[in-house]
Structures are given as C-alpha cells and as structure tokens.
C-alpha cells in the first residue's frame, strides 16, 4: 500500500518494543463483539493509482463541465477565469498541508496571508474588519443574523425577498431551533428591490434587516436610506454579497452604511466545484468585533521586536469559551481564502475594476441580444453581471431543452422557488468574462428555437 511506509519487519520490531504479541493486543479495549474479523465484507480491496484514476475519470466524464460549451449559470456561484498561478500557489505543500496556525512561529506564511486576506476583504466590502473566513456565504449569512441578535438583544430579523432562497432556507432551519423570528417571503417580479418596504417594516423588535446586493434576481439598489432607517430604530443592516466581483464597479455595502457585510467569495480564485468548498466572507464595523464568529488574525511583535501575526481575540471561540462561544465554528475555509487572496492580489484594484466592467459590459450585451427573442423581456432596470429574463412560458422545461442543445442557459426560478407558480416564467442569467459573443448568439438562437 503506497501510502503506508511500515514494513512487516518494522511492525514486528515495534510490537516487541511495545511488549505486545500482536496488533490485536493493542485493540484489547475494544469489545470483541465490536471487532471485525477481516476487511469489511462487500467492499473492494486496495487499488493502483492508475485504476483509481480510471474509475474517477469515468465518473467525471458523466458530467457536462461548464467550460465545454455555452454556460450562463449564476444564482450564488459564478464562473470566472482563474489565473494559472493561483492553482499552482495553493498547491505549495507548505500551504496545502499545513494545519490551522496554532504555532505562529512556524505558521507566519498562513498568518500573514490571512492578515492580507482580512484586509482585502474589509476594503472590498467597505468595512473596518473582516475575519479569516467562514464555510460559505449561506452559513456566514446565518451567523450574521445570530450576531445581530447578540448585539441588539432582539430576535426579529427582516429578510429581503431578494435574498438567495437557499440562504433563506439555512436561516429558517437554524431559526427553528434558536428562537429567532424571521420575516421573509418570495420575491415579486418587480424591476426594483423591496428595500423601501423593508425600511417601513422595521420596528423596536427588529434585530436586523438582511439584503442581498446584487440580489437573487440580479437587481442592485442604493441601501443608504435603509441603513439610516436601521440606525434610527437600533437595528443592524446586514448586506449579503454573493458576487464580490461586482464591488469593483458598484459602491460597497459598507460605504452605504451596512453594519455587517457577509458574502460568498467563490468568484475569486475558487471555481465552481459543484457548490463547495467555497469561502464565506464576514466583515463588520470595529465596534462589533468581539461579537464576531470565527478566526481572526492580528498583528503583533515577537520576542525580538520583529513584526509577526497570530490568531487573536480567541476568547470568543469554542476552544476557549466552549458553550459560551460566539459560534461553534472551528475549521473554516483557509485554502479557499488563500485562493481568493492570490486572485485579488493578481487583479489589484485596477484589474478588479477592469474585470468588473467587462462583466457588466458582456451582461448588457447578452441582455440586449436575448431581449430580441420573441416573447422574452428583461425584468431588471439595473444589474451587474446577472439579470432575470421573463419568458412567455415556464422556464424550467426550457432549461432542459436548452441543455439538450448543449446550452446551459441559467437558473430557472422554478428550480429556486418550486412552490411559487407566479415566478415560474423567470430565468436568472449570469454573464461573466468567460462568455464569448458566440456563446451569446448560440444561446439566443437556441432560446428562440425552444420557445417557437
């Protein structure tokens, strides 16, 4: 077995050192009836690298990869070009095979990277501080709601109908068990957001208002007034960003007054990966930092006065505070945070702005082309790189017919809101820099055929 270096002579010698007659003697504390005689029945035995690669390769070929043809899916996961150096660097064994940096003297690589990541995220989202990552955007969103409860000592959260329905589902699941009260609903097919109505709904029981920006239908809006309304009522504004590339072009939630900004960082460096692992972004104003969940990296000095970095403010965390911790999170998403940070460093401010502008330009071109298909219109009056098409028929069967023509044409609202027939004609279409003019033309032509 290629990963197990002990030889049978080694095992014999080691058993002698231990004073055991056989390996079974070391399992003496396991009751005999719970021990198996041999390898578990019905499972294959060990296999060569070639055989395993062949098996897994065959499974991989049973899926249609996004890069194999026209591809327009978004709704919380976006396909961007990731520079080759990102994947090379995250596979450096010193990053890939390190543990959480508990011993800072020999983990400065990870720690400095996390400090840079936190700084990049805080600046991008427009907040003071960010943590060292969460599992993903949906769990970060829930943690933000819980954090708002801790800060405001109120339990009612108002969720915008534009929040990703899976993020809403996660919040609903958790709220069932924690006593949080959620006020939520499905979106309406309006050109604009529901934020003005949300501002009117805030009351003295409200802990927070949660808005997504851009939202699930791709709409963008100014949250300044909503932030003011929250502040006036003693509630917090939580903004959720599932497409951070957008913030190269549009104002950050922090700039507009959001108290906590969370997000999904997958767009930068991480790739689609069928939904995970991704990287949750979590940022807030400095005054709330001691209520944050997750790891935080901070700057300090060593015994010789040299600058260095450590995990800090850990009295918030489970390994110190146990049942009184701000969250149960332990392992987070370090390697994906590294990928995000490297990609962001490669882009820099100029590159991010250019990438965002190209995304927006291509999405506008696609929207214009698709709106020419008979019976099809664009819902949004504003968008970044994702918009909602209104079809003359239910979008879900259309998606499957498009797939037969090798076009992956977006995410139907029927998939996202299966119980809401009023939304079934909606189709959410994302257009990034990876989409070509030929892809757009092929999509428009196929959509016309399918709808004909």
């Amino acid at each position, binding site marked *: 077995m290629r990963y197990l270096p002990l030889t049978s002579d080694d095992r014999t010698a080691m058993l002698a050192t231990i004073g055991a007659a056989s390996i079974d003697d070391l399992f003496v504390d396991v009751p005999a009836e719970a021990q198996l005689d041999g390898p578990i029945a019905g499972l294959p035995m*060990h296999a060569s690298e070639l055989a395993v690669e062949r098996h897994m390769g065959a499974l991989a070929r049973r899926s249609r990869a996004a890069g194999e043809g026209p591809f327009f899916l978004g709704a919380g996961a976006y396909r961007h070009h990731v520079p080759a150096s990102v994947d090379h660097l995250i596979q450096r*064994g010193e990053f890939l095979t390190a543990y959480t940096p508990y011993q800072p003297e020999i983990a400065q690589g990870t720690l400095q990277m996390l400090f840079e990541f936190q700084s990049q995220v805080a600046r991008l989202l427009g907040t003071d501080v960010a943590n060292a990552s969460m599992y993903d955007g949906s769990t970060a969103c829930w943690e933000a709601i819980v954090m708002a409860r801790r800060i405001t000592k109120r339990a009612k959260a108002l969720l915008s109908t534009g929040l990703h329905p899976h993020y809403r589902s996660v919040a609903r*699941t958790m709220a069932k068990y924690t006593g949080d009260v959620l006020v939520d609903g499905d979106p309406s097919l309006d050109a604009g957001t529901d934020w003005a109505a949300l501002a009117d709904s805030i009351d003295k029981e409200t802990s927070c208002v949660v808005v997504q920006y851009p939202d699930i239908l791709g709409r963008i809006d100014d949250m300044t007034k909503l932030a003011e309304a929250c502040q006036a009522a003693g509630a917090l504004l939580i903004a959720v960003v599932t497409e951070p590339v957008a913030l190269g072009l549009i104002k950050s939630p922090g700039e507009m007054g959001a108290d906590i900004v969370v997000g999904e960082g997958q767009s930068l460096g991480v790739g689609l990966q069928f939904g*995970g692992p991704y990287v949750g972004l979590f940022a807030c104003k400095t005054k709330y930092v001691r209520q944050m969940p997750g790891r935080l990296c901070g700057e300090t000095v*060593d015994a010789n006065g040299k600058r260095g970095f450590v995990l800090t403010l850990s009295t918030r965390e489970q390994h110190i505070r146990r049942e009184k911790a701000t969250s149960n999170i332990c392992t987070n998403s370090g390697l994906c945070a590294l990928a995000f940070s490297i990609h962001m460093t490669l882009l820099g401010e100029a590159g991010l702005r250019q990438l965002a502008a*190209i995304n927006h330009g291509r999405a506008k071109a696609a929207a214009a082309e698709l709106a020419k298909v008979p019976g099809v219109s664009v819902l949004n009056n504003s968008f970044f790189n994702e918009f909602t098409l209104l079809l003359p028929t239910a979008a879900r069967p259309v998606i499957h017919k498009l797939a037969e023509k090798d076009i992956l044409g977006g995410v139907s609202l029927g998939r996202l809101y299966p119980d809401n027939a009023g939304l079934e004609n909606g189709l959410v279409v994302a257009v990034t820099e990876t989409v070509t003019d030929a892809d757009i033309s092929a999509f428009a032509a196929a959509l016309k055929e399918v709808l004909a």
Partner: protein
Amino acid sequence: MTALNRAGWRPEMNVAGGADDSTTFTGNRALMLEEALIFEIGGSETTGVDFDEAAPAADLGALARTAPIGLPGLSESETVRHYTRLSRQNYAIDLGLFPLGSCTMKHNPRLNEKVARMPGFADVHPLQPQETVQGAYAVIHELAEWLITLTGMHSVAMSPKAGAHGELCGILCIKAALEARGEDRRVILVPESAHGTNPATAAFAGFTVEDIPATEAGRVNLEALKARLGPDVAGVMITNPNTCGLFEREMKAISDAVHAVGGYVYCDGANFNAIVGRVRPGDLGVDAMHINLHKTFSTPHGGGGPGSGPVVLSAALAPFAPLPFVTKHGDDFRLIEEENAGEDHPQTFGRMTAFHGQMGMFTRALTYILSHGADGLKQVAEDAVLNANYVLRSLESVLDAPFAASGPCMHEALFSDKGLAEGFSTLDIAKGLIDEGYHPMTVYFPLVVHGAMLVEPTETESKAALDQFIGALRSIALRAKNGDPALKTAPHFAPRARLDETLAARKPILAWEG
C-alpha cells in the same frame, strides 16, 4: 522589504561571531527570506492579469464606485514570489512529522488533488440541470455508500461543511426527532475532555450542557452517567476513541443506558482514524457521528480548512437528515431538494448550507478510499495505533503518561507536564520541538490532564521518522527536566521567536491601516 540595516554589513559586525538578521541589509539570512505585506509592495495600478478586451464605460449612475478601494496589485512574477516566500515560513506535513493530536495530520496523496481538478468535478455548477451532472451525483453517492458501510450505520448526511457543522447536523437531527415525539428535552451531556466544539454546538442549538464525569482511568464514568440520565436528557456527545487516546470500552453500555431513557447518542468522529475498517460505530449503538474527511480520509487541511463533515445516522435519526441529498435509481441519480422532499423525506429538519456540501473534498476522500480499499483502511487503523503505542512506550520513561498503566492507547499518546523542572511547562517542550524541525503536538488539550501533550503520529510515518522524533522529544524532555534555560526562549531557529499574543489581543490590529 525595506532594509532593516540601512548601512549594510560592515567588517566590525564580525559575522563569524554569530550573525543575526540585523547583520544583513535586507534582514534576510540566505534561504530564510523576509517578505513584506502586499500593501507595502503592491500598487493600485499594478495588475498581474491581462484581459482580452477593453473595459467598456459603465452606466450605473449613483451606484457607481467612485472612491478608491485600496487594493494593491502585483505582477504575476511578483505574486508567485510573494506567496512562495510566504509558504516557506510555514511548517507542513509535506516537510515532516506533524503530531497534532486529534487532528490526524497524515500524508495528503497528490492523486486526490489531480482527481479533484478533473473538469467534470471542478468545473460544474451546483444548480446545473440534473441530467448534466450525473457524474458529480455519482461521486456523492459512492462516497456515501462507503461511509455507511465503514460505519455500519443506516444513512449519511453529506452536506455539512466541517466537523463542527456536522456536529450541528447531528444535534439538529436529535432535536427534530424529539420534537417529532412531542418531547422537549433540554440537556445534552458532554464529557469534560470533549473538543470545545461539542458544548458550543449543543448550546448553539439551544441545549443546556452538563458535564459527564470521568473515571481516573480517563474514560466516561458509566455509573455516574447512569445516575444523571433521565427524562430531561436529550442525549450525550461522546468522542470515541476519546481525546485521552483511549477507546471507551463501555460504549455499548453507555448507548444502551441513554436509549433506555429515550435519549440519543452523538459520537464525535474526529478520531475515527484509529478504528476505520476495524470497528463499526453502528455496532456500538451510535445514533449520529460526523466524519472529518480532512482527518481520516486525507483531504488537505489547507492551513485551516476547508473541512468536510458528513454525518452518519441511525435508522432512528435518518428521517430528519438535512436537504439536499442524492438518491440512486437504476443507473441514474436524483437530487432530493425542498420540492420533492415532501414525498420522499417529509420530516427533514431543512437545509444547512446553500448547495450540496464539499464536493471538492468528496472527490479527494473517495479517491483516497478507493486507493486503500477495505484491506488498506484496516491497515491504516492498525498502523496508526501501532505508531502511537510505539511513541507512548518509547517515551513513558522520560515523560509522564497519565493513562499508560491502564493499557494500550489508540491512535494518540497522551503525556502531562508532571516532573518537569520548576518553571518549565508544556509550552517550552512544544517550542523546543520547533527548533528540532517538528510541529509541536497538541498542547493543553484535553483539559482533564495538566499540561497535556497529545501526540498523534498517524500511519503515514515510517519507523525511521518515528525513531528520530522520539529521540528529539526525549532530548527536549530531559532538557525541561534539567531546567535548561535555553528552552525557555525557544524557538531560536524559526522565522519568528515567541510572539506577543497578549499585545495582539489587547490592541487588536486586524487589517492593514496604511
């Protein structure tokens, strides 16, 4: 990096007499290279990415970003150098033995990485039409079948993102099961030796946490546990093998006692590596157990994640498992989501995360499992336990091993700070190991042993590697017993000396402020 010594080296600095890093102009010492922050070396106009097209003018009105963001950029060559230099300041399993107890730092096979990057796994979207992602569903299903068989359990929830998220999944299953029975039980019992995530998870789900007493031999005190059980107890969370490195001999009796009063048994599977392929938790009465794919099944820790924490479930808890999950119908796979759960899975407690879980970890774990097979996995457990006992018995003469007398350990060897010279601690031993070229063991955990040192060598270490580590730890232990003052200021040869953690917490600097 700006120069630390702007004057550079001068003959009177007498390098031969012991150069430190202020001797050189850069602060570097040959291959030990200092690296500045991207905020100190990057520029707002610098980029390492070329685009095929010019950026068109945007028309976003008042929402358009006008103020600078403050993000530095580097060219590709500078980027590669920055992160390569940073990487060299890290210890990693690729560099040497990483005996972090309860963390299972084993070799991460590179085939796993290659497979995970196949486009059919890495470049597929979670919301693609189901007919276009059958291969991805097949991986989830095949891994699920292995986990169910290896644990002897009824089913598995694949979506939890890490161990602690898996704990939450199991605890919410328990809560949902109790609700379905119309019972409002409030107490979860957790041993003092448990990982901090256990009580944090139970509290997060609204339970009250109470301690389970331990015996002097480091195991759950069955009689004391039985005395506490009653109609208010929702369940227990037990780590087995436990964090003292011992198998809970009475696990089945514990499970039976908890079940007898209507409670459920959660097992923390962080230490599954010790028994994989040899013992099935399902045979011990467990109702739920998370499996850290990043421990037992070799997916890389990545400097703090991503993890992956599938939860195997008993028949009693399976109806409450979270959405979504994959089912098999002939050769085809189907995803059960909110819309079709009504018919197939009406009692689910809901969704825990946006999509399907850590696909990138599933491909790696399945690759690892297929490489080992049933025979190889059994050998994994046996070699892991053999290596840990070899460490225990080779060092018990110089380090206090509080439970060594009660028999063999499982996959990790536990030592205490008893017998060290006045003023010397576990921390000094840990820092001394750094100078010897090792990552320290887990220190000050579990809390039930004073100055605990928990050594988990794993099965992927050779005897020669273990012998060298044992020699190094023996040498440091003797220095700590003899009061060698140099140990108090270790590490001496790491990129940094001991860092001021008090300062970091008292005056937090959490982001670049330049």
